[in-house]
């Protein structure tokens, strides 16, 4: 054996002996001081081998011995804390990995709160704050001369990553701030960055280096869900460092590549979220997605198809990263293809939650923005086929948001695949924030001019000086101008407002409801027909008796009416007229309409019109105080002549109708009231007209839904109408509050809901839930409990099930609301029954 090495052994053994036996502070100090020369960087180079010997073989044992001596009395053997200082320096200056392990081991091994535990915790805090973790990691990155110990690395890894948990468990309430995860992991991020810097320096010196330990640390931290803390610190550093250094980029690529497979997803997701854009992501990841199967799966499958919680900027980073390199671009094309397949699959449209569908649509639009013309042209047929299928099933959906998604994506896709052809354009209101954002995504240049580019100098044209109005004013004798002058002739002729100069409508307006019916049914003269339709509302209003005589016939004509002349506002006029007729003669017209709902040879549109009209009429009938103020309910009924006047209010008389408001406001402002209480207006009250006819509206609709006709199958393809029917029934139920039939209506409706409760269509389920809610609102609580206890119980369990498991968010919310209503019902009954 080497003499030097045995010298080390002897001195260590002596030191341990001194520590364990001596009570003399000075002696201990000198012994420790003698050992300390084996630590430290500087000093006698001849000591190199001895240092190594000490570090590898004796250090841990010695540290354990030091720890075992730790006690208040021992530290006070020397004055001024010299002993404590030299004691700590062994931990802080010696090899970091061993010191760290001993500290952690000591902390784990110390039971309960004690002086030693706190001392060790403080020591660990110092260890952290002095950057020893970086040294530790750095140490692990060094190429090994001897075979490394996987077990040691594993232990280190666990301790480094698990430090906050360990300390938290051990210290409980006495935990120190640096060990909280929210402060430890950012620190760890910094240390990792520092270690990487050292690794890069090593590489620059031409030596080897291995970052796999860092990768494992990163992976483990990310798996624990601390991506945000560590990467939030690390990624900005790396972003800056990789900016113009290829070496740094290579180190980063290596770093991510060596992340263990099971941690790959966590790390990549964290990176996606932390990276500010696709360029940064490309620098950090390199062509990882091509080389690593797991990464490829995560990036092209998992993040796109299996998850949908990520934000749009993150999607943009991801897809932008795929698009940034020619080797990765095929993956982007492939991704678009698969996205479109999913988008176009009917079952996905039906069963996937709306948020996921929106996510996939967004991803498609971003892909489109990144793909170039030739790439799209190559796959035009495939894309077109998927698009056609997708548009069909989106438009079939009963949820407007899904339909909108279909339209937005199809428009963007067709405009990119067929830029030369006529643009596909759907009719939808683009007032929706979401769809506008989505359309903006599909434009190929995502970062163009800023919104500040708007020219602020684009002021409205300079206002003309208000010209003197000729006419009467021109006669005033004060004007000095000579008469008959040709020069002034242009100035004095200021035109009047000519906006009311509209095309004159024929004046063949029918004067009686019966005439209207005849004209609407049979007239070939379009002008006459339009005039009749426009006049109808006023006529029905004016003469309810005459309307009652022809009510059913009128309803029939109106129901079959088609827009023959592209009349502006045709649908509205027709609907208003139908509602008005129904309100005027509720029993007979409702009977007719409900019978026609299940009749043959109607279009779905007509059937849905029937439902709309029934609801609107029921709403009108049940409105309190309806008869007191016939002029000002839902839709004011203007006479036939006043229709054009309503369309173009005259500027001079615009303020005229408001005079009453103005006067009342003025009176209110000048009047001082001593009590505010009595000034509140009483709500108009009166009998509910809907009471007597609610059954006529409701029961015929609910009876025959399960009997399919040749052209109309509510339980089959026509689920949109079924959804509307259920919503209508719910609305009727709600409007029937305080009526005598409400209880039997509620019973029928609950049975109906029970029959359909597992319907696949979201819209239908939403309708069922709202119907249940309206039953709970409308039927008196006593009747509910008295007549329908079983139904309520069943409904309750179903609601709880939906609230928990339904795929649609709205459905879940509605179920929760209905459950709350049920609870409230229970609460309202309990105090009444308890005494």
């Amino acid at each position, binding site marked *: 054996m080497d003499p030097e090495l045995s010298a080390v052994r002897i001195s260590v053994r002596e030191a341990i002996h001194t520590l364990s036996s001596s009570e003399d502070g000075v002696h201990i100090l000198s012994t420790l001081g003698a050992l300390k020369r084996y630590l430290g960087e500087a000093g006698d180079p001849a000591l190199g081998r001895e240092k190594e010997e000490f570090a590898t073989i004796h250090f841990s044992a010695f540290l354990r011995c030091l720890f075992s001596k730790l006690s208040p009395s021992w530290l006070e053997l020397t004055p001024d804390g010299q002993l404590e200082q030299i004691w700590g320096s062994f931990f802080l200056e010696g090899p970091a990995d061993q010191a760290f392990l001993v500290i952690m081991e000591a902390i784990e091994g110390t039971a309960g709160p004690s002086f030693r535990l706190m001392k060790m915790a403080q020591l660990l805090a110092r260890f952290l704050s002095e950057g020893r973790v970086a040294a530790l990691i750095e140490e692990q990155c060094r190429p090994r001369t001897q075979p490394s110990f996987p077990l040691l690395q594993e232990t280190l890894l666990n301790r480094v990553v698990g430090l906050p948990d360990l300390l938290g468990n051990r210290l409980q309430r006495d935990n120190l701030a640096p060990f909280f995860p929210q402060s430890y992991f950012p620190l760890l991020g910094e240390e990792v960055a520092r270690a990487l810097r050292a690794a890069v320096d090593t590489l620059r010196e031409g030596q080897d280096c291995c970052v796999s330990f860092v990768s494992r640390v990163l992976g483990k931290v990310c798996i624990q869900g601390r991506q945000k803390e560590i990467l939030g610190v690390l990624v900005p550093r790396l972003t800056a460092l990789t900016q113009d250094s290829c070496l740094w980029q290579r180190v980063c690529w290596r770093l991510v590549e060596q992340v263990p497979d099971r941690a790959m997803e966590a790390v990549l997701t964290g990176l996606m979220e932390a990276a500010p854009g696709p360029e940064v992501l490309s620098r950090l990841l390199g062509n990882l997605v091509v080389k690593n199967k797991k990464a490829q799966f995560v990036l092209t499958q998992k993040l796109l198809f299996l998850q949908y919680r990520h934000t749009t900027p993150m999607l943009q980073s991801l897809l932008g990263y795929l698009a940034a390199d020619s080797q990765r671009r095929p993956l982007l094309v492939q991704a678009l293809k698969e996205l479109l397949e999913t988008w176009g699959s009917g079952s996905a449209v039906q069963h996937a939650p709306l948020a996921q569908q929106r996510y996939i649509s967004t991803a498609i639009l971003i892909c489109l923005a990144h793909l170039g013309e030739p790439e799209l042209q190559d796959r035009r047929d495939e894309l077109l086929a998927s698009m056609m299928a997708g548009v069909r099933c989106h438009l079939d959906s009963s949820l407007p948001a899904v339909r909108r998604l279909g339209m937005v994506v199809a428009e963007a896709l067709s405009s990119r695949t067929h830029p030369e052809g006529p643009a596909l354009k759907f009719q939808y209101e683009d007032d929706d924030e979401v769809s506008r954002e989505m359309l903006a995504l599909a434009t190929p240049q995502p970062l163009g001019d800023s919104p500040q580019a708007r020219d602020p100098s684009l002021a*409205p*044209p*300079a*206002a*003309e*000086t*208000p*010209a003197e*109005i*000729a*006419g*009467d004013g*021109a*006669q005033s*004798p004060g*004007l000095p*101008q000579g*008469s*008959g002058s040709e020069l002034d*002739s*242009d100035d*004095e*002729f*200021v*035109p*009047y*407002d*000519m*906006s*009311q*100069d*509209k*095309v*004159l409508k024929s004046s063949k307006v029918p004067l009686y409801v019966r005439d209207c019916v005849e004209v609407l049914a049979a007239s070939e003269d379009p002008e006459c027909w339009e005039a009749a339709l426009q006049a109808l509302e006023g006529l029905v209003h004016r003469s309810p008796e005459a309307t009652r005589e022809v009510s059913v016939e009128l309803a029939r004509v109106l129901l079959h009416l088609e827009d023959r002349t592209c009349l502006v506002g045709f649908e509205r006029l027709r609907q208003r007229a139908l509602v008005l007729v129904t309100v005027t003669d509720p029993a007979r017209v409702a009977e007719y309409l409900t019978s026609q709902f299940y009749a043959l040879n109607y279009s779905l549109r007509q059937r849905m019109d029937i439902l709309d009209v029934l609801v609107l009429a029921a709403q009108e009938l049940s409105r309190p105080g309806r008869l007191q103020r016939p002029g000002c309910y839902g839709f004011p009924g203007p006479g036939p002549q006043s229709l054009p006047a309503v369309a173009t209010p*005259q*500027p*001079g008389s615009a303020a005229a109708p408001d005079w009453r408001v103005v006067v009342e406001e003025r009176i209110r402002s000048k009047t001082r009231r001593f009590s505010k209480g009595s000034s509140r207006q009483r709500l108009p009250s009166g009998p509910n007209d809907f009471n007597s006819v609610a059954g006529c509206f409701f029961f015929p609709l609910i009876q025959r839904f399960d009997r399919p006709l040749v052209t109309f199958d509510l339980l089959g393809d026509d689920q949109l109408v079924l959804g509307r029917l259920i919503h209508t029934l719910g609305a009727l139920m709600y409007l029937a509050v305080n009526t005598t039939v409400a209880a039997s209506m509620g019973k029928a409706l609950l049975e109906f809901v029970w029959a359909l409760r597992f319907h696949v269509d979201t819209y239908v389920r939403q309708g069922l839930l709202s119907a249940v809610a309206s039953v709970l609102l409308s039927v008196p609580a006593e009747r509910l409990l008295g007549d329908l206890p079983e139904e309520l119980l069943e409904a309750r369990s179903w609601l709880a099930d939906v609230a928990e498991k339904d795929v649609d968010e709205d459905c879940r919310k509605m179920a929760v609301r209905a459950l709350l209503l049920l609870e409230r019902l229970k609460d309202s009954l309990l105090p009444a029954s308890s005494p």
Partner: protein
Amino acid sequence: MAAPLQPPPDPQFVLRGVQSAVNALHFCRESQAQGSSLLFSGSQSGLVHIWNLQTRRAVTILDGHGGQSVTWLQSLPQGSQLLSQGRDLQLCLWDLAEGRNAIVDSVHLESVGFCKSSILADGQPYWMLAVPGKDTDEVQILEMPSKTSVCTLKPEADAKPGMPMCLRLWQANFSTRPLLLAGYEDGSVALWDISERKVCSQVSCHEEPVMGLDFDSQKARGVSGSAGKALAVWSLDGQPSLQVCSTHELTNPGIAEVTIRPDHKLLATAGWDHRVRVFHWKTMKPLAVLGFHSASVHCVAFAANGLLAAGSKDQRISVWSLYRPRDSATPFLGESEVGGRHFTAA
């Protein structure tokens, strides 16, 4: 367009009581009004009302057409004489001097059409009258008051302009040759040289029959309206030949009459769409659309002082005061009476 436009004006007042559609209007010339302005109106029921514009009452009602519609009214410059043309094929000459109201003369017409006649009178005892002739496409020129036929203007055999729809006799200042402008059923306007009995020039202005025309001899420019949607402005150069200057599209088809204000500044049209339109005559800029009537407007007339009257099928005569010439501010229509709008007569 930034300056807010004035809302369209209301009528100054409305004359009611004709109890039949108003077909013809004519303001009496001021020289013979003896201080009070008069407005003549001819109705569907054959009556001619004489309105005092000061009292806004009908002064006299003349009944000389046997219940047949009166289509044209014209006063003569000399004396207090009025010409009225009716669908009873009579053209009556009334003497209204000193409160008389008697038919002093009448001309039997041979055309059953709606063509209004025209006169050329400049204070001479002899004056010229153009009336629709016996054949459907003829115009007859008579010398009055002797009622001798001067000539008959018949288009060339191969030209088939159809019936004359409106006539306008005039004479250029520098010549003594009377000329006649006639609008025809085929939409053309023809200029006849009466002394040579031939068409000097003819221009096709409209797709539909010409319903009314007026001519501004100062500017040698005229305007015609038709049953169609357009208003045509044409001019006469020295040759003389007619040329269409411009056409103006209207919102609704059908113009019953066009009239240029005596000071040649405004043009008013009587529309079948119940509206009176006012244009700046020089530039043809639309100035106002007067909406008051509830049926077709049949006739418009300007007074020398700028007052505008419109007669309609809804049996009312609306009187408007727009862009009045400055020298014609007569006290009876001054601003002091603005409050008396819609004051109704009789």
